[in-house]
């Protein structure tokens, strides 16, 4: 590429911070002991894991023994939902979620539907919000689980989690939240928010990929998902991934330490981007709620053009971003999130997600704002849909 990469896809994954890699390194080649072993290098691994557990717990207001390490955010979601469902099926078989969850939640719920569970997919509004009222009304005598994401990965909308938690707790129904996009970006406290289970994933806050955790409030009935050895106090089998766990602990500590400052920085980048794009480019729509959104998330739909082409041209300018276009999602339809907020297919195909992170600067925004209008215009010039608009036939 030559030029410095302008990476605006932090919601897809972040780089791992050098300090985090540094913290992990000794556990590959030197302190490589199996944490379940009793000899010295095994005990060192064990100690490192327990320190990481403390850090994860501290960052979300939990106790260390309520944290279980997993191999990813997806695993945490699968475990939480299947684990609660199968452990509590004597009590009921109804699950409440939304129609714009991450696939790790959505496909898990669909899997359970095939296995005799009943799932209510609450519709979000045009900004991607659901109301606590909607949740309360969906509760039935056989409801055993409410699973609603903290912050959406595509359009960044943040849900009223504390209010939903309150309702769930009052009704004695377990409440799980997929906080994979929230951790490190917004303050999360499982006690204050009455959260019973929470999923998180290291590679969204400058930790390693393949490192997740599930918070399980003491007392929650949950069956195991990964069967095997007695690791994680007998609840999640497999040889402890010491380097990744250490990295996760280090990353979450760094990410939550100065979250307020980080937020301020991201909001400045995001708001300028949103304001300028809306001003400079016609036929554009901001997706997601203007206020209740992740500090680093800007998501637009540009009419008459398709997302993959947009990404390729941005990439040629050294800008990495993502889209909800079907062509980039590997599925039949454009992003279910964009459809859930009511976008027609053709508009959803032209979406662009920009997610800012630590290393981004206002100069990055400058370059983006320089490149984007030209690229959009270029693709529109090539688009048969734009023709008619230019001819005045603006049926949009």
């Amino acid at each position: 590429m030559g030029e410095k990469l302008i990476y605006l896809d932090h919601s897809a994954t972040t780089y791992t911070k050098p300090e985090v890699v540094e913290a992990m390194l000794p556990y590959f080649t030197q302190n490589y002991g199996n944490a379940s072993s009793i000899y010295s290098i095994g005990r060192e691994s064990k100690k490192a894991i327990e320190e990481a557990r403390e850090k994860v717990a501290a960052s979300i207001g939990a106790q260390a023994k309520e944290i279980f390490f997993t191999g990813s955010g997806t695993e945490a979601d699968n475990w939480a939902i299947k684990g609660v469902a199968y452990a509590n099926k004597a009590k009921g078989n109804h699950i409440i979620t939304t129609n714009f969850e991450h696939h790790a939640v959505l496909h898990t719920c669909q899997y359970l539907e095939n296995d005799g569970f009943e799932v209510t997919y609450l519709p979000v509004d045009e900004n991607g919000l659901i109301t606590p009222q909607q949740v309360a009304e969906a509760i039935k005598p056989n409801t055993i689980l409410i699973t609603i994401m903290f912050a959406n990965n595509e359009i960044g909308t943040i849900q009223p989690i504390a209010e939903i938690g309150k309702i769930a707790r009052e009704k004695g129904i377990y409440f799980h939240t997929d906080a994979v996009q929230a951790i490190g970006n917004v303050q999360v406290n499982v006690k204050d928010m009455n959260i019973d289970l929470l999923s998180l994933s290291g590679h969204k806050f400058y930790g390693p990929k393949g490192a997740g955790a599930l918070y399980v409030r003491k007392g929650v009935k949950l069956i195991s998902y990964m069967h095997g050895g007695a690791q994680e106090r007998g609840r999640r089998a497999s040889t402890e991934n010491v380097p990744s766990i250490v990295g996760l602990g280090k990353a979450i500590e760094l990410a939550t330490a100065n979250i307020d400052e980080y937020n301020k920085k991201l909001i400045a980048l995001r708001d300028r981007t949103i304001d300028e794009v809306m001003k400079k480019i016609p036929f554009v729509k901001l997706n997601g709620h203007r206020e209740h959104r992740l500090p680093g998330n800007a998501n637009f739909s540009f009419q008459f053009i398709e997302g993959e082409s947009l990404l390729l041209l941005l990439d040629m300018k050294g800008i990495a971003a993502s889209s909800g276009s079907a062509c980039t999602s590997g599925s039949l339809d454009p992003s279910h999130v964009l459809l859930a907020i009511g976008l027609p297919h053709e508009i959803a195909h032209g979406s662009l997600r920009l997610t800012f992170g630590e290393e981004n600067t206002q100069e990055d925004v400058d370059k983006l704002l320089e490149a984007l209008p030209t690229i959009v215009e270029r693709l529109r010039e090539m688009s048969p849909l734009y023709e008619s608009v230019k001819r005045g036939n603006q049926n949009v």
Partner: protein
Amino acid sequence: MYSEKVMDHFMNPRNVGEIEDADGVGQVGNAKCGDIMKMYLKIENDIIVEAKFKTFGCGAAVATSSMSTELVVGKTVDEALKITNKAVAEALDGLPPAKMHCSNLAEEAIRAAIEDYKRKNGLLSECEMAGSCGRRCDDIHHDHNDNDEEDED
């Protein structure tokens, strides 16, 4: 993902635009599926002398459009009708499996434009009256989600 040739045709598409007095115009695909290809042909003495396109779609859609216009020019109508999606893809040094449908679109766009030309000139045989339009999205895309069974690629 894409070959250099695809990227070249995407970045520097040949023959973008419209032909005001085209002899045949064909549009295939639909916005719902995420790709529309519109092909304009200028035909003289049964030979395609000019081709232009407009495309709404992914990189492969743009590149196959561009390549198709290059392939048809200089060919007779009948020769052009023999251009297969495989030929378009090969001329681009291949397409990723998930993008092969874009080359179908190109083939279809050529057919549609030629059909239009024949219709305007009363050259249409009966069996050609059954158009190639009206595809559904799921004819062209694969559903990769939770495809628990062995996939066939």
